């Protein structure tokens, strides 16, 4: 087959190197990097172009072609170290195959991505181990909040067909506030207000230039990106399932939804949410998050979001939807400063609060008072038993009805 011999130089002179690059790429793929066949071909070409000089040059040559996200750098680094250093590899393999042998070498600090790459290289070794039991936990922690970090796993009941249909319907009726931005692109529109010279030219030529009829266009309108920050701490545990379903349905319908959840730490669930099947998506979310129903550190986690993510996801006029009860345990000063920063970095900040219906809520609400001045809209969910209630709380409403200033004034008069 001729077309498989695209690089006869490699095949003749240094066949094993090309083979090794193929194996190396396969290892990277197993370790979770996206390396396609085209990239492998490029890698071989790049090595030919750069020539084989020092180990460092070889490293960066492969890096240039095979890595295209910064997150993958650690994986690549670890895989390169393991793969292209045969002695260490042999040692490691020996160690893997004889579990009884005591480890005499000094224990190194685990490198990033080490376990993932190790898994990819020694696939099959771990298959014999019994699957980890995931305990089912059901703790009702309404009205309690703490700053302690409790790491828990969680199992969600699967979604029934009726629930799914209902969810889709509710999302279809959802009208988010501030959900349209005018772009600088145009679409043809006979009732538009701007002249469209290009369309005019084309139309004029159709009639041979006898008639130059004005054509019009108007700006295109699109949905801005939506960034959701959802609280999954103990006090919110009752509602978690509902709003995760809500977020999944939302991600399915719109192009730009970034999902983050937090209780004592921040987790980005955007990729997990992209699974088409809601049960699979939720199962993946359950696996990705370590602190289900943990304590509440809103200020800390917002700080983390502001520093690491805000500049990456809040571009293009993003709307932020913050779902939390505002029961902050930690320092209010941090919370206030971080809320202010968040408010200033997005186009509109909407706070959705599910706890408001309970009596005696205000007394505990130090965090709420700190957060209120920095949101554009404050919406309460009176019933979070169903998705419809959530959509209803987000849709529509009269102008000024959700002004956080009104809420603040109520607090003041009560105090």
């Amino acid at each position, binding site marked *: 087959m001729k077309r498989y011999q695209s690089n006869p130089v490699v095949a003749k002179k240094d066949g094993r190197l090309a083979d090794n690059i193929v194996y190396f790429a396969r290892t990277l793929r197993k370790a979770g990097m*996206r390396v*396609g066949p*085209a*990239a492998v071909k*490029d890698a071989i*070409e*790049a090595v030919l*172009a*750069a*020539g084989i*000089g020092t180990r*460092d*040059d070889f490293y*960066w*040559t492969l*890096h*240039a*072609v095979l*890595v*295209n*996200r*910064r997150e993958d*750098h650690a994986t690549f680094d670890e895989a390169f170290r393991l793969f292209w250093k045969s002695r260490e590899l042999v040692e490691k393999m020996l160690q893997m195959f004889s579990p009884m042998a005591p480890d005499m070498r000094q224990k190194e600090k685990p490198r990033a991505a080490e376990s993932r790459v190790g898994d990819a290289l020694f696939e099959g070794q771990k298959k014999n181990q019994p699957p980890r039991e995931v305990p089912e936990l059901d703790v009702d922690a309404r009205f309690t909040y703490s700053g302690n970090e409790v790491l828990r796993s969680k199992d969600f009941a699967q979604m029934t067909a009726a629930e799914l249909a209902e969810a889709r319907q509710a999302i279809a009726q959802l009208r988010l506030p501030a959900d349209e931005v005018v*772009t*600088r*692109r145009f679409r043809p529109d006979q009732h538009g207000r701007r002249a469209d*010279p*290009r369309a*005019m*030219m084309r139309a*004029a*030529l159709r009639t*041979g*230039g*006898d008639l*130059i009829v004005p054509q019009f266009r108007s700006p295109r309108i699109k949905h801005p990106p939506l960034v959701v920050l959802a609280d999954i701490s103990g006090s919110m545990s009752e509602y978690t399932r509902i709003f995760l379903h809500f977020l999944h349905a939302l991600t399915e319908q719109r192009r730009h939804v970034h999902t983050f959840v937090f209780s004592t730490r921040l987790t980005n669930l955007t990729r997990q949410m992209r699974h088409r099947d809601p049960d699979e998506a939720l199962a993946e979310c359950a696996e990705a998050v370590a602190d289900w129903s943990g304590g509440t550190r809103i200020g800390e986690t917002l700080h983390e979001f*502001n*520093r690491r993510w805000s*500049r*990456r*996801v*809040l*571009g*293009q006029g993003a709307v932020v939807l913050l779902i939390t009860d505002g029961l902050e345990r930690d320092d209010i000063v941090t919370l206030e*400063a971080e809320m202010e*920063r968040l408010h200033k970095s997005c186009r509109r900040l909407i706070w959705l609060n599910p706890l408001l219906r309970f009596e005696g809520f205000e007394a505990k609400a130090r965090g709420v008072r700190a957060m209120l001045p920095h949101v554009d809209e404050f919406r309460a969910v009176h019933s979070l038993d169903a998705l419809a209630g959530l959509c209803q709380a987000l849709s529509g409403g009269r102008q000024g009805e959700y002004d956080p200033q009104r809420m603040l004034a109520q607090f003041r008069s009560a105090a």
Partner: protein
Amino acid sequence: MAVMKPKPLPASIEQTVELLAGADYIADRSLATVLFLSLKMGRPLFLEGEAGVGKTEIAKVLASSLGRKLIRLQCYEGLDVASAVYEWNYAAQMIEIRMEEASGETDRRQMEKNVFSEKYLIRRPILEALEGKKGAAPVLLIDELDRTDEAFEAFLLEILSDFQVTVPELGTIHAEEAPIVIITTNRTREIHDALKRRCLYHWVDYPDAARELEIVHRKVPQANQRLSAEIVSFVQKLRQIDLFKAPGVAETIDWAGALNELDKVALDPETVSDTIGVLLKYQDDIARISQGEGARLLNEVKAELSAAE
């Protein structure tokens, strides 16, 4: 800008390092490797990194040291084909139609050909970049790609893989020699994998102390040895603490320039707090450094430098 004679591309990684150093750009080996590969394989170079680490500078240095024309496309939200690739000169076209009518031209095809001829085509950066002659292809800098939307990104796919542009009225315009393409992004959003796959990717990181010191020496030769060492060491320490926006190399160079203008020979706490606005651009960060933490860092810097002597 003076027209320079185009030079051939570097033939090895060493030559690439030398080429950049000749234009006062101190690149580390990894960047030189990627750049060399991109030139050799004719692939666009995709540079990602924090603001102020010298991504845009690469393109400028490359253009000047290779004697090529630099064509810059600054991206912004709503950037469209009309301002990135080409536009027709409508006013002139209308006159053309009227003239044809007056002269009694009736053949529609001929008329179309006259109206949509290259004479009335206004070339924007991308189309301009496709018109390089053999051995003198320009450098096309697509700056801050993350500022545009996905629609434009998708449009770039055709250009970056085949180096051609299709103008419906004229046909396909193909580059005689592919331009040297450098794409930069600040990562305010993720760029689609399809586009990244066509490029060689490199994350431009902050330089280490030794390299940063050399950069300061090259860019601000007037600043004395001691001051430059203190500046670099201070900035390196700033990058390690948890700031909202860490200072980039551009800020280091600015700061060295500023302190030099103030005739300083060494750093002192007062000067640092007076000029910190050159380094840090967020009020929270400035407040934090002015309140004690800056003085602590400065003491550390002084102690380390005198220990090294």
